[in-house]
């Protein structure tokens, strides 16, 4: 409270002038009257007494009073903002403790510092990520940092607006991993302008950890088209962020744990972001999960961000087929025309037009110059040694290899099949046992064993579907089973076939001729598949009104040989490619037995591997014959791999699919400390930047003092009516009378 003397009545100027004249007149008369006092000392004393009394009278006339003014001092606030986003769970490198723990430990040690601030300011504690939440100091320590984003500017504004009480300043504890306007403004530099923070006071920033000693390598991004063509190079762009290293690291591209491509990356301390181009050639059709990985170094702050998964859907552009025919024939001609006219097939064919026993002389027995011929040398080496891996399917059509290729070259064909190639042998008088294949590496991959002595059967026949053939995709000329069988029964008859022995274990005879002799057989060998067609008269279907079925048969055969996804025995698919976090993808599994009949009563398990490599096994339930369903929980964002295993009576088949869950956490993408942002914020606001851990005693902060302001409450108390004011007047006059008497004055 503040008291002051005031005059309660406001006199006009002329009134004050009259009063002053009266006082002067009184003093003048008094001085004249005191002229008769004999000593100057007595005159002075008497005059002073009279003047004082006159002054007091004037004082009373002016109506004095006491005005009481209530003065209040208002306390302001200091906000302590603690970042509680997920990035604060990361280690405060080089400390092993998390960033959040380092901050709460400091706050605990700095109780004295906070107490000294609390003398003049109210201290408020906030946890923030997207917005600020007011807590107590004790409540702050029990916060679990789970915020999915960080908005420092928003948190500062929230703190400023929280109460009417002025914000004197802020203590900001954060790693600087901001995803809001603060980061954008700092990144855009001075042109970004200052941010309106709502806080007039200084911001003291505290960063848990040391950016200079922060070491980490992270794979932050993979740019890919999302699809590619099988056996066609595909390029991806990998974004790598690295801090604190000057070394060379490998950037690996993996599929199912195997390294399929790699590049070297030179890291330098003055650079943070890198782009790496990696080219690879997908070998299989279907959806695949690929992983880009930089092997973690021993001293990295975080090892869990060194890899990133992505999905590539590999489709077939064109199926590459190599056809080698032992001679021109109608069977070769119609098949070649069919494959050549298929826009989905890239065909390369070779035909033996002249054999070593062909006569090379003309009618007059003159040798025919080679220049007169359009024949080219048969490129055995180019085909068997080098070219085979470039193809998806090899067809040997009525081809006796012996005059053209050494025995050992057949090993190339076997290896081609083992590594996933499709192989077809088509019959004729130069094929199977007649082609020198018994005992060759090719016999090892054929569906049938071969008789050592070539035997052919002539005569017309109609091939009949075997039980295995009824459901096999190669033989499906119509999706409906009954119609399919009717079609097979109505096809034009064939003429002649090579006699083959029964299918090997694991092979299937799909169609048979007289006496149950296999005419169409299939087998899965290594990673590849083989097909034997033991006749050279299938062309009759094409020429005799069944061209559609001829085309369908070979289309089915090629699709099965190249393992087109439509022909797999076990297929799994999610109902969508992309989901939101929390959704439950439904995975549908269609299973068929080795003879391609719907597989019922199987044990179907789905292993789901989450982006963080956690694995969960879910059992799928059978909904219909051969169709199973399983539901998956998705708690993380990223790419999930679902691997299905179907088991029944010794049969075990797997299939994969992948899907993505959106909702990536930006908090964990860039885990480095952003000291620059915190320093800039402190500089702009007049604060300072500190690193933690730090000793509270080393922290110097200055905040503006709290403001005081006068309250609107005033109280006026008059004095002029107080009797105590008149007593001095009476005393003075009395004293003058007494002194006059004492001095014997009139």
């Amino acid at each position: 409270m503040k008291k002051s003397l005031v005059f309660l009545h406001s006199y006009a100027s002329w009134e004050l002038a009259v009063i002053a004249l009266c006082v002067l007149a009184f003093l003048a008369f008094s001085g004249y009257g005191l002229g008769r006092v004999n000593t100057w000392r007595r005159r002075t004393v008497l005059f002073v007494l009279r003047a004082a009394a006159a002054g007091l009278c004037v004082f009373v006339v002016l109506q004095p009073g006491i005005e009481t003014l209530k003065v209040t001092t208002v306390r302001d606030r200091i906000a302590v903002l603690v970042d509680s986003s997920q990035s604060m769970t990361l280690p405060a490198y080089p400390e092993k403790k998390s960033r959040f723990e380092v901050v709460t430990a400091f706050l605990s040690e700095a109780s004295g510092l906070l107490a000294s601030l609390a003398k003049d300011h109210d201290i408020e504690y906030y946890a923030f990520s997207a917005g600020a939440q007011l807590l107590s100091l004790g409540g702050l320590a029990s916060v679990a940092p789970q915020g999915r984003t960080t908005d420092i500017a928003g948190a500062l504004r929230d703190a400023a607006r929280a109460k009417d009480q002025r914000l004197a300043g802020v203590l900001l504890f954060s790693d600087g991993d901001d995803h809001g306007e603060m980061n954008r403004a700092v990144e855009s530099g001075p042109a970004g302008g200052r941010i309106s923070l709502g806080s007039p006071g200084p911001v003291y920033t505290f960063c848990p950890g040391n950016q200079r000693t922060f070491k980490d390598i992270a794979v932050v991004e993979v740019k890919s088209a999302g699809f590619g063509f099988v056996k066609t190079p595909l390029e991806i762009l990998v974004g790598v962020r690295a801090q604190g290293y000057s070394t060379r690291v490998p950037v690996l591209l993996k599929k199912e744990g195997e390294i399929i491509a790699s590049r070297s990356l030179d890291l330098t301390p003055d650079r943070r972001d890198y782009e790496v181009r990696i080219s690879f050639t997908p070998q299989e059709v279907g959806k695949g999960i690929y992983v880009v990985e930089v092997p973690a170094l021993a001293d990295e702050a975080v090892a869990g961000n060194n890899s990133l998964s992505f999905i590539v859907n590999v489709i077939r552009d064109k199926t590459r087929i190599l056809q080698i025919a032992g001679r021109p024939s109608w069977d070769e001609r119609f098949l070649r025309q069919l494959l050549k006219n298929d826009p989905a097939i890239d065909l390369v064919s070779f035909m033996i037009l002249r054999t070593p026993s062909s006569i090379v002389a003309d009618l007059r027995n003159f040798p025919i110059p080679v220049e007169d011929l359009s024949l080219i040398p048969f490129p055995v080496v180019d085909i068997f040694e080098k070219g085979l891996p470039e193809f998806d399917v090899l067809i040997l059509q009525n081809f006796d290899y012996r005059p053209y290729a050494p025995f050992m070259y057949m090993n190339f064909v076997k290896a081609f099949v083992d590594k996933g190639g499709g192989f077809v042998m088509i019959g004729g008088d130069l094929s199977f046992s007649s082609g020198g294949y018994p005992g060759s590496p090719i016999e090892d991959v054929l569906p049938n064993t071969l008789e050592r002595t070539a035997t052919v059967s002539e005569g017309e026949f109609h091939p009949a579907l075997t039980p295995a053939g009824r459901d096999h995709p190669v033989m499906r000329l119509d999706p409906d089973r009954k119609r399919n069988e009717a079609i097979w029964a109505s096809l034009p008859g064939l003429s002649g076939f090579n006699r083959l022995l029964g299918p090997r274990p694991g092979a299937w005879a799909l169609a048979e001729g007289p006496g149950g002799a296999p005419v169409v057989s299939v087998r899965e060998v290594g990673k590849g598949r083989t097909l034997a067609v033991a006749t050279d008269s299938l062309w009759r279907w094409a020429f005799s009104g069944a061209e559609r079925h001829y085309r369908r048969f070979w289309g089915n055969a090629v699709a099965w040989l190249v393992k087109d996804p439509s022909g797999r025995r076990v297929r799994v698919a999610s109902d969508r490619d992309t989901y939101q976090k929390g959704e439950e993808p439904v995975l549908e599994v269609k299973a068929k037995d080795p003879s391609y009949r719907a597989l019922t009563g199987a044990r179907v398990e789905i292993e789901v591997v989450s982006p963080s490599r956690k694995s969960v096994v879910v059992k799928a339930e059978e909904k219909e014959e051969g169709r199973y369903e399983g539901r998956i929980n998705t708690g993380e964002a990223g790419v999930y791999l679902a691997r299905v295993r179907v088991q029944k009576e010794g049969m075990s088949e797997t299939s994969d699919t992948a899907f993505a869950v959106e909702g990536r956490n930006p908090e964990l993408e860039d885990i480095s400390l952003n000291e620059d942002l915190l320093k800039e914020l402190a500089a702009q606001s007049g604060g300072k930047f500190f690193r933690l851990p730090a000793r509270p005693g080393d922290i110097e902060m200055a905040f503006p003092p709290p403001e005081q302001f006068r309250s609107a409450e005033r109280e006026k108390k008059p004095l002029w009516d107080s009797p105590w004011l008149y007593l001095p007047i009476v005393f003075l006059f009395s004293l003058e009378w007494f002194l006059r008497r004492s001095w014997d004055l009139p």
Partner: protein
Amino acid sequence: MDLLTRSNRRGFLRIAFGSACAWTLFRAKGALGLGEASKFFWVQVAYNGGWNPRPTGGRGLLLEVGKRTSVDVALESRRIRLTDPHVRNYPFLCISGAGDFPPLSREEGQALRSHLTSGGMLFADDASGEDNGRFARELKSALSVIFPDKEWRRLPSDHSVLRSFYLLDRVVGRTASSAFLEGLDHEDRTPVILSRNDLLGACARDEFGAWEYQVIPGGESQRETAFRLGINIVLYALTVNYKKDQIHQPFILQRKR
């Protein structure tokens, strides 16, 4: 008498020698396919008229095809009417004549059109050997009725039939009256090829193996070229545009220089 005896003996030896050679030749080839469907037959189309002016021409040609190429041929020629249901057993048909050619009936026309558009091939040979022979004129007219949407064209020098086995720059037969072949195209092939030079006349042999007709004006070298053309026609029927594949182009271009 001596002369007759000598002639009979000589003839007998010719026949015996020819048969032995033929037998030896084809015996050495080993098994001859899985059945008749595998072989290449010379099938002459029969019609009401002079449909078979060169009865041994086809066989004579196939003899050389069998000797010089890897094609598995059947030496016995066949004859068939277009309306025969078995016509679909034979993708290659030959039609020839020396005089008039009667219009095809509706059934014959439909059967022929179906045959050719399903992958079959027709070789037409004008046995008159004249540039403007009546057979060729009337046959073209008859086929234009079956294929009203197609036009006859001269086959260019780079047509696949002229490089399917031999590289040819001349079109000849028993005569050389026309310097080019003619054809009707369908999709990416030429299922009808017409020769006006009596190609089969150059290939015809009598039962003693001697040439039945002289080849004019080029003599035996022209006959050889005629055979090469015939072989090319057979190979074209079986391989179509195989020689247009990219892999053959550098070789062909180099040899044609």
